[in-house]
């Protein structure tokens, strides 16, 4: 319908054609996308990863070293990634989903077994995380851990002082009416329900309908206090002083504190792990069954496990690395930073998400839609 409008402005149309001439001269570089059919030869690698989740120099380094051309694409949530892989609309070779989504993909027969002969650097991964991975990948056949972390509350010390609210210590504090319009919640179904379920003292992997109904009601009650449901934006919004508290992934902490210093802001942003426990998550590399360049994918995974590369990535994205080799390369200060690498004791009561089956999934989705449309 909108398009019909443009017919009205025919007289002005002529001009825009010149855009081509002008824009074309801009330094488009030689990085022309090879948008053709995904080639069956092994000169390419389709990577599907979270936004801002890699040091881009690492990609270039991988390309230079192997001669493989990387086509790099981003997703925002696990839920958004899944249908893309499921439909096979694009054949990605290596993807980085989280725990429960890996389980879902594995159970739905969407993953290829990794040939670990091609991934010698797997020895660099701390066995602790391989053990943790068994929750969703029982025989460690399909996934290689890339990052892990927790979900917690980030708060603006100055803003809370102004509002006369104490620093949050539990999920319960996100229902404090004095924080009206000051709360940023996560805009993905499992993360949002995790907050409510943990607050009520339930497991975040529950399929019990009364528990879920209560969590839904809690989220509806909370909605007037919530400023926005966001995903990656929470970081910049908190730095910008848009809100007093936000639910955030632990890995953003270092970047945020650095940025607060760089900008010379007059407030501090602190991170707290709520006492009820939280979501302990692992994001791992997996290879979809319909991947066309499996060996390249294994080269990529091996490359990511190399201690120096894992360290470079850690320093750029600041999400805790499960790579023992990379951890050892860090200086002692960083190794001892508890908000990045929490003690096991802090994680009491925390859980890892598990996949609950398609039926429970759609119950969650419907409840979430009820929250959003309320």
């Amino acid at each position, binding site marked *: 319908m909108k398009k019909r409008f443009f017919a009205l402005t025919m007289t002005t149309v002529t001009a825009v054609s010149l855009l081509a001439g002008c824009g074309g001269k801009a330094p*488009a570089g030689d990085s022309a996308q090879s948008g053709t059919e995904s080639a069956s030869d092994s000169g390419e690698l*389709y990577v599907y990863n979270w936004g801002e989740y890699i040091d881009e120099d690492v990609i270039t380094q991988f390309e230079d070293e192997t001669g493989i051309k990387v086509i790099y694409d981003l997703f925002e949530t696990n839920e958004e990634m899944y249908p893309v892989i499921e439909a096979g609309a694009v054949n990605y070779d290596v993807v980085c989903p989280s725990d429960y989504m890996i389980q879902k993909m594995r159970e739905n027969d969407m993953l290829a077994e990794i040939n670990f002969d091609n991934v010698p650097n797997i020895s660099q991964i701390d066995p602790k995380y391989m053990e943790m991975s068994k929750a969703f990948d029982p025989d460690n056949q399909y996934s290689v851990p890339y990052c892990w972390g927790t979900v917690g509350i980030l708060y603006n010390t100055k803003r809370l002082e102004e509002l006369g609210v104490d620093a949050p210590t539990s999920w319960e504090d996100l229902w404090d009416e004095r924080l009206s319009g000051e709360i940023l919640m996560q805009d993905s179904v499992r993360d949002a329900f995790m907050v409510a379920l943990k607050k009520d003292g339930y497991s975040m992997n529950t399929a019990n309908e009364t528990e879920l109904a209560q969590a839904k009601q809690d989220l509806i009650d909370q909605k007037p206090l919530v400023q926005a449901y966001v995903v990656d934006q929470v970081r910049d919004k908190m730095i910008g002083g848009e809100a007093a508290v936000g639910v955030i992934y632990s890995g953003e902490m270092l970047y945020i504190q650095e940025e607060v210093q760089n900008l010379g802001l007059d407030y501090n942003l602190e991170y707290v792990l709520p006492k009820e426990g939280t979501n302990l998550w692992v994001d791992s590399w997996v290879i979809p069954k319909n991947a066309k360049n499996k060996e390249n994918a294994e080269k990529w995974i091996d490359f990511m496990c190399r201690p120096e590369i894992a360290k470079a990535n850690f320093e750029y994205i600041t999400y805790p690395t499960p790579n023992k080799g990379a951890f050892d390369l860090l200086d002692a200060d960083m190794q001892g930073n508890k908000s990045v690498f929490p003690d096991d004791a802090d994680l009491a009561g925390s859980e890892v998400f598990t996949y609950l089956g398609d039926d429970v999934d759609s119950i969650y989705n419907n409840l979430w839609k009820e929250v959003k449309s309320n």
Partner: protein
Amino acid sequence: MNRIKDNFNRIWQDFYLVIIMVFLYAPIATMMVLSFNSSKSRTQWGGFTLQWYTQMFASRNIMDALYNTLMIAFLSALIATVIGTAASIAINSMKAVPRTILMGITNIPMLNADIVTGISLMLAFIAFGISLGFQTVLIAHITFNIPYVILSVMPKLKQTSRYTYEAAMDLGASPIYAFFHVVFPDILPGVLSGFLLAFTMSLDDFIITHFTRGAGINTLSTLIYSEVRRGIKPSMYALSTVIFVVVLLLLLISNFAPRRKQADQT
């Protein structure tokens, strides 16, 4: 008496025009100012800088997206023009009923909501087993561009007389020769404006591209969307400013520079 009233009216009208103009331009002006602000804050002026512009031109993502946008716009407009012009000639020589049916089909992508067009194309690509990527965006853009070409060429074709074409043939010209030497020059303005219209539509599209794009393919629109959802960076303000200034200059040149009369062509 009347004159006073007229003056009063005039002032009131000017006031109204100014208000609307402020409403339309204040947001754009704000972005332009912020694009030169060295502080990332939107409320404090940290001094003049061009660093966001350097950052923008150095960004591989933005430049790739620009390249894709222009490439898709150019190719889709070109292909749509060829298919659309041929179709117009055929439709023009048809009887009323098939013509009405074809014109009806032509109208669908223009009148349908973009979200429905986008989703339907995505379903079709997946059903046909076409991997989502550059080619699917291109096909989608050609699809919604063809109607604009047809709608610009048809009125021109109606104005041409079929007798000149037949006369040329009677004089021994082949149909192809007759077409290119007799008919084509007459409809050329319509073909050109169809091409330009198609090019513009392609540049502006977001929703259909959003549903039909695949790995590593961003146009400026989809890039801006994902960037904005991640947090607004000042380089986006720089990009806005550049786009606005380029569009402004081009529209000024085309509208107000002396040029061949092209009025009434539609």
